[in-house]
């Protein structure tokens, strides 16, 4: 089957999730990837949305982080303060799955402003749950389309801390979780170098090229000594993803 780069990205992200993960799910691409994983190889994955819906199993993708579908399918729904205190800060989440507007070579994320904070060129939505998701989940996966505008050498504003200036910067701040261990784009996969913590390309999606990734990355991006080729989406994966997206679109048309 033919597939788009965006489909490749979502499928690659879904593959990174395990059946026994407890996942704190961002809205949009992260939510699509997490629910795709649930429909494929991770039927028992626990999805928690910051609206307090614990164990949500939405039949269609929610538009917002608190769509009725989430509460109606959740095991239980708790208050937002409890969500952040007992469930996120309590250390119960294995993977935090985030989207981002900008990411830099050390996995720091900006979703606050382009330009200066006081007089921004672009005012972005802001932090939401991301700052604490980035430091309190066991590890963090980031999903973000690969463009030169979003892959910047240094973010204008650190909304969510990745590896700071690299090396043991997390540890020096007293952060004991793994941080952004995987970045999934529409061109490939990046992981932090074990020592320097610089994001390194470890896999290139079928159809993408080294040159393209170089061009779309705002710094001189490094490649792992052995770069893998991401297998293309198979028929099962594509059918599940398209079924999910199709259901969601039909549902959106018929709302209210």
């Amino acid at each position, binding site marked *: 089957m033919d597939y788009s780069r965006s489909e490749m990205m979502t499928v690659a992200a879904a593959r990174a999730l395990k059946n026994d993960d407890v996942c704190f799910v961002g*809205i949009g691409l992260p939510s699509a990837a997490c629910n795709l994983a649930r429909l494929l190889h991770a039927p028992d994955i626990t999805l928690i949305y910051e609206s307090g819906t614990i164990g949500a199993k939405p039949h269609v993708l*929610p*538009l917002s*982080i608190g769509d009725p579908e989430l509460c109606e399918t959740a095991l239980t729904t708790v208050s937002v303060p409890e969500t952040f*205190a007992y469930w996120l800060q309590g250390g119960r989440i294995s993977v935090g799955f985030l989207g981002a507007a900008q990411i830099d070579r050390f996995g720091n994320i900006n979703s606050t402003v382009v330009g200066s904070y006081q007089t*921004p060129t672009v005012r972005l939505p802001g932090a939401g749950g991301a700052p*604490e998701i980035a430091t309190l989940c066991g590890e963090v996966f980031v999903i973000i389309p690969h463009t030169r505008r979003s892959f910047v050498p240094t973010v204008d504003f650190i909304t969510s801390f990745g590896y700071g200036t690299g090396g043991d910067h997390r540890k020096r701040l*007293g952060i004991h979780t793994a941080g952004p261990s995987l970045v999934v784009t529409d061109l490939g996969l990046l992981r932090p170098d074990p020592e320097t913590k610089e994001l390194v390309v470890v896999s290139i999606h079928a159809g993408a090229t080294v040159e393209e990734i170089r061009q779309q990355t705002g710094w001189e991006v490094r490649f792992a000594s052995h770069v893998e080729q991401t297998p293309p989406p198979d028929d099962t994966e594509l059918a599940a993803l398209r079924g999910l997206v199709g259901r969601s679109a039909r549902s*959106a048309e018929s709302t*209210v």
Partner: protein
Amino acid sequence: MGGRRVARFLSLPEAIAHYVHDGDTVAMEGFTHLIPFAAAHEVIRQGRRDLTLVRMTPDLIYDQLIGMGCARRLVFSWGGNPGVGSLHRFRDAVEHGWPRPLELEEHSHAGIAHAYAAGAAGLPCAIFRGYLGTDLAGANPRIRFLECPFTGERLAAIPAIRPDVSIVHAQRADRAGNVLIEGIIGVQKEAVLAAARAVVTVEETVDDLRLASPNAVVLPNWTVDAIVEAPGGARPSYAHGYYGRDNTFYTAWDAISRDRDTFLAWMRENVLAAGPASRAGGGA
């Protein structure tokens, strides 16, 4: 401390006139669910000014208040149109000062949730594991750090949020003014308990709250000042058990709000010229 207040049943114009004043710090809460749009529209119609608006997710409701010039300052943690994109009126105010400049006090969700909880709990501040490594602490002087007296760990501290008035929407109230909230309950209980005054709009008033569980989320009538019957008052957001979220309107808002004149025309027609029983957006 004296005895207690007891909730009064008021019309929407009465409740807003009585409990929301120019210059107040106002929290309208509801985390994607039960957002008190009808009350916000009445605030716009009554022309309140210089408000400090507090809300985790400003959403369309504050985009409208900001675009209509009601707000001087915004305390928030995520200012987008959920699942759609930007809040154009919020961005216009921050980026270009239109219709007036907007001061920002910016937090993370965890920060603002803890600050509301501290307000409800009568504490001057909250501590939590937050803001580590971010630039938010540098941008917001109300984010500080202290050391755990037992472990020495560095913990974030933020002052409690204590609105002058909190406004929430709920499923129903009984005739005594006790209120049920269920589904995605967000920070509504905390916002109400943290505030000096509280206004609750409800889908309906009933003889019996029909509490399904002894642990249902209930606001006793002595924690609320005014109850307003406002069926559909959360549209275009939703009320679990009553009506769904109008995702189509959320998507449509992107185009309505992008341009100042289109926005003003829409607000004139759907809010200013409409009465308190109108429901602008949602079900439309």
